[in-house]
């Protein structure tokens, strides 16, 4: 992956920059020693690394504003960072950039059950938002698998999803307002505790903008009352086609499960070997979860099981206890870890129309043979968000490149069948150069024009999302 050459003129300003940053931040919030900046050299896409010029850890919106104003005046690029769990290289620094980490800003500012929202500083982790309200039986719905670590800041920037978003939506559907600091230091409030926008829906475009429009320091999030209970059912099928058909029949039937997860045979085998969840050895496996009281759960499951039976499953496993439920989820939850035991892996997240599932899985299988790299599929089937995990050996020269080429082919396939490159992980650097397969130059131009408005100098997270060639003139200023 090509990154722009560091700007030597910017690098030369480092001493002056550090001096100015220390005027607005405490000493322990400015990290500029080469040995220490290394801690920020990558996110969860670890194949790419580059230590930043320095990293700052502000504690307030005011400090964020001060930092941005200084960087703006000095023409220094800034890469916002939450917890660094991006799988797309969204928080990858450039050598001439400042990493602006919001991890120290993790307070809950306001909890309002009557109006069902919390306001938090965005360095707070996803799970600890729920943690702050669960003693009162409320929760924050978007639940990325990384929720223990990832921050609301990153969730907003990536518009993250999770297993339960089939029912509850992704981040953007649960975000009511933000405090945004613009690159020049201006602080703006967008949205709030009310439910819609009075003018253009700026909140909608800020969410998912990958840290390129401003730094989000506070967020108003919708919280919901916890359902009375939840229960999964496991189904095994002989073919991906049949499993795919079952998914669409369930969706059509008017029961809306909170989650429909799909695993294919390579993935089932890997997780079985690793986690011993007792999954059947079959072609495709579905985990469908519903919520409600016991009686409501039964009513929904009866309907779902009836649909499943009409597709001749090789296995139907209902849970009758919390332990059994946990066991059904165990394999799914260990899937990434299990694949990681076998080898290094790259996780893709293209989305496809649900009806294309069998075709796409078949093509991925064929491509896997052509490339000589194994791949397992585990994904959110209800909304077509695939997660092919391609196995490769990072120590074998050329394997990463081969894996990337395979991944790119899969993503192009997703686009060809009517889907998209990324359903929840974001573009970052990883899919940046593939954007041309989904968008015409004009489609990219209008997106870049939005960045022109928020960040005219293109200093915020500059080499992400858009192909370098497409953004070259703008980045040059």
């Amino acid at each position, binding site marked *: 992956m090509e990154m722009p050459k560091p700007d030597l003129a910017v690098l030369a300003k480092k001493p002056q920059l550090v001096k100015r940053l220390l005027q607005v931040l405490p000493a322990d919030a400015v990290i500029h020693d080469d040995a220490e900046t290394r801690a920020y050299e990558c996110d969860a896409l670890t194949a790419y690394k580059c230590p930043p010029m320095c990293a700052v850890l502000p504690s307030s919106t005011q400090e964020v504003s001060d930092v941005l104003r200084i960087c703006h005046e000095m023409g220094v690029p800034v890469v916002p960072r939450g917890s660094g769990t991006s799988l797309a290289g969204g928080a990858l620094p450039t050598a001439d950039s400042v990493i602006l980490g919001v991890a120290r800003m993790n307070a809950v500012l306001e909890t309002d*059950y009557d109006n069902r929202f919390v306001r938090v500083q965005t360095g707070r982790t996803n799970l600890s938002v729920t943690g702050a309200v669960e003693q009162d039986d409320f929760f924050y719905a978007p639940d990325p698998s990384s929720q223990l670590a990832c921050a609301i800041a990153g969730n907003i920037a990536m518009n993250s999803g999770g297993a339960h978003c089939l029912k509850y939506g992704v981040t953007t559907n649960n975000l009511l307002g933000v405090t945004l600091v613009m690159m020049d230091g201006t602080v*703006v409030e967008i949205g709030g505790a009310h439910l819609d926008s009075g003018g253009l*829906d700026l909140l909608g475009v800020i969410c998912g903008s990958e840290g390129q429009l401003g730094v989000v320091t506070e967020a108003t999030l919708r919280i919901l009352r916890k359902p009375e209970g939840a229960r999964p059912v496991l189904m095994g099928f002989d073919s991906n086609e049949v499993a795919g058909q079952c998914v669409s029949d369930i969706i059509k039937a008017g029961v809306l499960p909170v989650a429909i997860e799909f695993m294919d045979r390579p993935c089932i085998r890997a997780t079985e070997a690793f986690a011993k969840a007792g999954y059947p050895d079959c072609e495709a496996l579905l985990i469908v979860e519903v919520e409600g009281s016991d009686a409501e759960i039964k009513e929904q499951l009866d309907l779902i099981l009836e649909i499943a039976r009409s597709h001749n499953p090789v296995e139907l496993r209902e849970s009758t206890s919390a332990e059994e439920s946990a066991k059904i989820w165990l394999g799914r939850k260990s899937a990434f870890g299990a694949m990681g035991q076998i080898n290094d892996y790259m996780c893709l997240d293209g989305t496809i129309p649900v009806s294309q599932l069998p075709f796409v899985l078949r093509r991925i299988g064929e491509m896997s043979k052509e490339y000589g790299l194994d791949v397992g599929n585990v994904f959110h089937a209800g909304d077509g968000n695939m997660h092919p995990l391609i196995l490769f050996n990072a120590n074998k020269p050329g394997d990463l490149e081969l894996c990337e080429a395979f991944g790119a082919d899969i993503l192009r396939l997703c686009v060809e069948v009517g889907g998209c490159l990324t359903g929840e992980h974001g573009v970052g650097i990883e899919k940046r150069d593939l954007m041309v397969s989904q968008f015409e130059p004009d489609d990219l131009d209008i997106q870049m024009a939005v960045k022109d408005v928020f960040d005219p100098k293109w200093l915020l997270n500059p080499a992400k999302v858009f192909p370098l060639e497409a953004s070259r003139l703008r980045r040059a200023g």
Partner: protein
Amino acid sequence: MKPQTEAELAEMVAGTNGPLRVRGGGTRPIGAPMAGEVLDMSGMSGVVLHEPGALTLVVKAGTPVAEVERVLAAEGQRLPFEPMDHRALLGSDGEPTMGGVVAANVSGPRRVQVGACRDFLLGVRFVDGTGRVLKNGGRVMKNVTGYDLVKLMAGSWGTLGVMTELSFKVLAVPQAEATLVKRGASAAEGVALLSEALGAPYDVSGAAHLEGRTQVRLEGLAGSVAYRVDQLRKGCLAGFDVVEGAESQALWQEVRDVTPFAEAEGDVWRVSVKPSDGPKLSEALDAAGVRHRAIYDWGGGLVWLLVQPGDATAIRPALAAFGGHATLIRGRAQAGVPVFQPELAPVAAISSGLRAKFDPRGIFNPGLMG
């Protein structure tokens, strides 16, 4: 101008100096009055794709809402965000179109449960102010590829571009629906009850208070609806009556379309606030001597106000104490009282910056949003 195809529209836009008044069905004459030639989108109509098993619908922007509802109903599906029909309230006629619904981000009572129009819009094709055909989003439910201009187009009132094709996520019509109703509560009491119901684990899909009537809707499988009705009546909604089926639907259509104000004289404002502030706003208006009627949807967060035109200048000052925003939906704009809520300077700068990029010559609905 009445284009029949996207290419024709693009050519027309490129070839004109405007201004153009973009019109779907013309049923929502909201916004500052404008000059300009009418760009009639009703020629670009029709369902492009409906995939019930994927909950996906793609339509041309000029497609009548009624046609979409028919097509969906045939498969037991619907537009989950329950768009309002403005005709009775505004005394307009014509056929509401999907483009108009999206341009105004029209979202009904179910907003509190499933989300707004913008939350169900998956993709959009549009022609910008220079005549370029552009697209954003797509037809799949999860998509974070590039910036989300889909949300930006929803609720942009035709000021950023002319939408030509729209894709939506749709949902199945649930088996059963029931509404819990009670008369006699004050607005403050009513909204407090709504808030309790919305904070209970019973997945409420409508929460409104209109003129002494408090109502809460539940939808889903029949057994589940019955169970939740029971639980709520044993709990915070004790003393509420239950109505079902068509009778329940009628109650929500009244809220959705703000029917009680349709025949009444006066200006109608649409105010969006933190739900518990709804009744407080009404009290503040009382205190300021502004005679008004109020209808509360979205658990109190969406307030429809009926006021006399002379009181227009009092609305936003009363609202200022709470935050949120107010839009004049019916009535004449007057000096110092713009139709849309004025934005603070830095936000206004972003909005006008975006308009200048999308429509550099300012030819689409110029000034409509102020």
